[in-house]
């Protein structure tokens, strides 16, 4: 939560004034020229296969004939993930071809519930070749060629993991709702970046990163400090959100914290992602393009190096 207030606050104050006096309405405007670039959303973790979700951007207005989610996926692309001494060609796997019983496991990976996976034909590229599963400290190169002749490439690293010192719950609203707090000792080298995920056992179908979940050590290099995180939103959670509990963890939850180290390019992407979500609708913010590490396309190819901790929130 430490990085979030700074940016939100900076953008919030003029918004406040605007809200008091401004009026808003829909407007007809031509926004021509929207592109259909390929977009990569890919990641790799130690001991797990690389997962690439490969879609195509859609223009907003005019010539968009987008009608269903399934049209977004780019099929039959040649996607290769390599290390310095090994290369593997990924294959495309779609949820329609996965037996229903396996969907929850797949959902865990993708953060989607099995009902959604059953209703849309969700496609990913991956590999069962253990030689290309993630290893801490290695670089992973991504190369893509589409059937339309587009070429994309990217590189990411799985850095050394850094574990949290401790984890605890602090009530925020009443006695039962609150945030999770963690203590981190940042290594003395400058250039460490992190991303936090949390999953409530039995309530979330995957690890969820809240807004402001990524930060780097520019201000905290070499120090030990505490930070608090809210619970991230997941619109596709199997259990619907309870009124008033959005954003909070609750007494009785068993929460698994997945605290990952990420490389700088990966961090820049998530930081720009948070900025774009926060700044949309704010006239005082510059347009916030996402800082992609993909050459030839949009999106991110990122390595994660997790450390896991479990916190049982007791009254």
């Amino acid at each position: 939560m430490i990085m979030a207030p700074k940016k939100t606050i900076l953008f919030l104050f003029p918004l406040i004034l605007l809200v008091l006096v401004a009026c808003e309405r829909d407007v007809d405007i031509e926004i021509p020229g929207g592109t259909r670039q390929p977009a990569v959303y890919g990641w790799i973790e130690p001991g797990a296969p690389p997962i690439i979700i490969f879609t195509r951007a859609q223009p907003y207005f005019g010539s968009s004939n987008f009608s269903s989610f399934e049209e977004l996926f780019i099929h039959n692309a040649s996607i290769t993930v390599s290390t310095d001494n090994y290369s593997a060609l990924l294959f495309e796997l779609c949820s329609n071809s996965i037996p229903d019983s396996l969907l929850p496991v797949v959902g865990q990976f993708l953060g989607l519930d099995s009902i959604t996976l059953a209703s849309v034909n969700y496609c990913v590229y991956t590999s069962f070749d253990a030689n290309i599963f993630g290893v801490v400290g290695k670089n992973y190169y991504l190369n893509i060629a589409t059937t339309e002749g587009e070429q994309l490439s990217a590189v990411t690293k799985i850095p050394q993991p850094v574990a949290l010192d401790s984890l605890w719950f602090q009530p925020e609203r009443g006695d039962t709702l609150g945030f999770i707090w963690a203590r981190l000792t940042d290594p003395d080298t400058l250039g460490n970046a992190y991303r936090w995920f949390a999953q409530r056992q039995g309530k979330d179908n995957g690890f969820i990163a809240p807004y402001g979940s990524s930060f780097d050590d520019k201000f905290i290099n070499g120090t030990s400090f505490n930070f608090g995180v809210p619970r991230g939103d997941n619109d596709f959670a199997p259990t619907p959100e309870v009124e008033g509990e959005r954003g909070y963890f609750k007494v009785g939850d068993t929460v698994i914290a997945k605290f990952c180290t990420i490389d700088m390019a990966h961090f820049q992407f998530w930081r720009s992602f948070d900025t774009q979500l926060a700044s949309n609708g704010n006239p005082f913010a510059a347009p916030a393009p996402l800082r992609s590490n993909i050459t030839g396309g949009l999106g991110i190819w990122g390595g994660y190096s997790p450390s896991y901790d479990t916190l049982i929130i007791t009254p």
Partner: protein
Amino acid sequence: MHRSRIAFLVVSFFQLLSIPSFSQEKFTVSGYVKDGATGEYMMAANVYVIETQKGTTTNGYGFYSITLPKGKYKLKFSFIGYQDLTKDVELNGNTTLNVQLNPDSYQIDEIEVVADGAKENTNSTDMGRVGLDVEKIKTLPAFMGEVDIMKTIQLLPGVQAAGEGNSGFYVRGGGPDQNLILLDEAVVYNASHLFGFFSVFNADAVRNVELYKGSMPANFGGRLASVVEVSMKEGNSKEIKVDGGIGLISSRLTVQGPIKKDTSSFMISGRRTYIDVLMKPFIKESSPFRGTGYYFYDLNAKFNYRFNDKDRLFFSGYFGKDVFDFGNKDAGFGVRIPWGNATATVRWNHLFNSKLFMNVSAIYSKYDFQFAASQDDFEFAIFSGIQDWNGKLDFFYLPNPRHNIKFGAFYTYHTFIPSSATARQGDLEFDTGDRVKLFAHEAAIYFNDDFDLTEEIRISAGLRYSAFNQVGPFKRYVKDPTLGTTIDTIQYSSGESVKLYHGPEPRLSMRYTLNKVSSLKAAYTRNLQFIHLASLSAVSLPTDVWVPSTDRVNPQIGNQYSIGYFRNLKKDAYETSVEVYYKTMQNQVEYREGAQPDDDVKDNPDNNFVFGYGWAYGAEFFLKKRSGKFNGWVGYTLSWTKRRFDDLNSGEWFYAKFDRRNDVSLALVYEPNKKWTFGAVFVYAQGNAITLPYSWYMVQDQVVFEFAPRNSLRMPAYHRLDLSATRKGKETKKFKSSWNFSIYNVYSRLNPYFLYVDISGSPIDGTLTIKAKQVSLFPILPSVTWNFSF
């Protein structure tokens, strides 16, 4: 070879200076022109010698000087809004003639030839210089009842407002930092209150406003696009006067008067808003915004003392502050944002003789901004600011009626705090780096001669030579070009030179008189700008930081070429002009794409800048009716302004965000009788350039945007009509009052302030909805102000 050529030019120049007319004895008549009612010295008043059909104008301190052969002359003194005064002079020795002009108390008949002041339009070489009559401004409709000088400047062709409710402005395609705003010679770095809804100038304290947008004479420098010279009133030296007004959102009071009659006087003027007090009842108890407070105040003070005919001393000061407070105890959240300017000027006028006038000024100017926020036990504050110590020496030399010479020197010591931050959580202090201060010396010398080459041709030729030296203490963070991490730091000690820039700034303008009522003018100017305003957002904010030129940031260089045709119609009752310009701007500064406010912390802000090139061109059409019951002006500008940066928009050129193809402004005043005055303002501006997303894609099951090329889209057009009516109350010798009714945005057009694209739903379940939305600020806003004076 070179040296003898230079010597030849110098000698020729001085020969030009002393063009012999007849070998007859010459004497100088000189003196001061004052306002007969208030004792204020009048600048730009006309002094016309009827026998020679030549004249001059008083300088910024009310001083004039004319050298003529021995003889008898009739001198006519005039100024718009005042009765002409003709004095007989027998010139058989150097003569001092001080006069006082009395204000007109009745309307001037439309057909009557207005004073030779009208000749300013066609005669002066100051192309692109516009003087604003402060009293006239007060009759125009005012936003929320607040008369605003900066808003009126935006009604002139070539000057564009930065946006709805924003008093920052752009002149001929240049950025908001390219305008030099001076209040009694002190630089005002942020002339806006409340994010630009009002300016810091309290019209009651202002005597005169001059805008230079075409050719800036050599005594001005440091900015590329324009100079706005605001002069405060001296203070009535004859009697105590009180002026004030009570309005819907703010009130003001000005007290001025003599300390010693006709020798020294003072003026104090203040203004404060009470928006916060008024808003409170409208904010619901349950609203999370309860606890919001905002106020601003301005304080102007002036004092002058006239020792004798040769020496005068002036002191002026300005102090203004905005404070925005917001707190939401439920969320444990609080924000406090104070910002403000402070300026002080001490000036000494000295008259060496009837031909040589000198002004020495010592000036202090400061602008600072602070943003402090807290969330539970997390506290965070950023501050930025700029502080100047400035000395100026200006000479006015009038050797003969053909030459009007100015020369002088200028020096400023700048201290910049681009942005420093502190952050703490409970007991832990975050490492946000040292409090960064940047230091620089800026200096210039200039020379300008305004002279008649022939009967038809008048030339203003000047040269300014300026220099800028960034000095330590300074820490340069050397960055790795690919990773962006700091790999080295270079430390400069106190006073050690980091980087020196210097260069010439030639200024040339020419007026060619075609006939009695029309003239052709042309100008070329070159300007250097050593300080820059780096802005993160699409709108000017107090968070924008001023930074100096450094080892990484070069000075901006502007070259402007302009040509114009000026014509007076109907016996000088109408002034018209057409001006065409072309400008280039080098070393323009922008933040790199994706820059964030906290990028600047523990880093040099200029490590996040990218540099590029700008060019602008356009045509300005202007028609002004100077007097009569119905008067005012209309202006139309057709213009383009473009930028090209290697690191922005993939190196492709793009329109600057304030590129506005067509811009129309109309200001009208109708005075049917002594009791009523009606005013109307109409503006039309074709949409601002804007960057919006034009495609979307999925990341982590979230819809994210891809943006269209920078500034490739346009907002809908902006247009607005304001009306005002002023009714004078019963006037006694001692007490005057008037009621002013203003309606802003009469037909309540919801002008676009900002556009964005809103997404709701998700493509996964087919509920995705994408809509473009427009945020507007002000619908129709009526207001009432009661003004009084005694």
